[in-house]
């Protein structure tokens, strides 16, 4: 599948693919350059494979990712757009896979929600995005507060951006 998201004009950082399932980028703001990582970790539930989205700052002290750090580098929207681009790139490479995402705190989940709402008009034709609220999954809508999100590719496209027959 090859998704053309030329109309995805949100400002984002350059992504570096480190492994098949991991991307890195550098937030650049008043606090300097801060290394961030986006990882898709494969898990299985009831014989169904899915990938969990993990995202956070690289902590040099612990040599691990920490998503509870408040960076405050004045580039929140650009960072979230970059995470969204990583998701798009991942699902382009693995079009049959499911991605699950939730924040490590309620406020982080809300940030993911805002990011999804922002890119929804551009990607809704390509993805089925659902949110978990009130004990059930429903199609993602702006303005709803979800506990978690799940998405998968809706269409199989060829490299020219046309739907496969």
């Amino acid at each position, binding site marked *: 599948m090859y998704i053309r998201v030329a109309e995805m004009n949100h400002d984002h950082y350059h*992504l570096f*693919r480190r492994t098949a399932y991991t991307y890195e980028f550098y937030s650049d703001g008043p606090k300097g350059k801060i290394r961030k990582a986006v*990882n898709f970790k494969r*898990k299985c539930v*009831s014989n169904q494979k899915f990938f969990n989205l993990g995202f956070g700052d690289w902590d040099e002290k612990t040599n691990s990712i920490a998503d509870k750090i408040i960076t405050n580098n004045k580039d929140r929207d650009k960072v979230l757009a970059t995470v969204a681009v990583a998701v798009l790139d991942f699902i382009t490479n693995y079009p049959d896979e499911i991605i699950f995402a939730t924040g490590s705190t309620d406020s982080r989940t809300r940030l993911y929600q805002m990011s999804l709402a922002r890119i929804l008009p551009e990607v809704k034709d390509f993805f089925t995005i659902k949110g978990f609220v009130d004990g059930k999954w429903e199609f993602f809508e702006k303005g709803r507060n979800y506990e*978690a999100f799940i998405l998968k590719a809706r269409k199989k496209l060829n490299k020219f951006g046309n739907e496969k027959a």
Partner: protein
Amino acid sequence: MKKHNNRKRGITVKSRSVISKKVVDYESDPFLVEKAQKAKEFLEKHGLPPDFIKK
């Protein structure tokens, strides 16, 4: 620096080099492992959306 052919998507993904030469084992990163486990527990409790289940 070599760039992947993603320009048509408006996505810039560069090859791995230059900025960091450190090799990081993300697969065993404690935060990622714990978060993925919590995701699994969430889906075991609430299930996947029916239209996401592959038959």
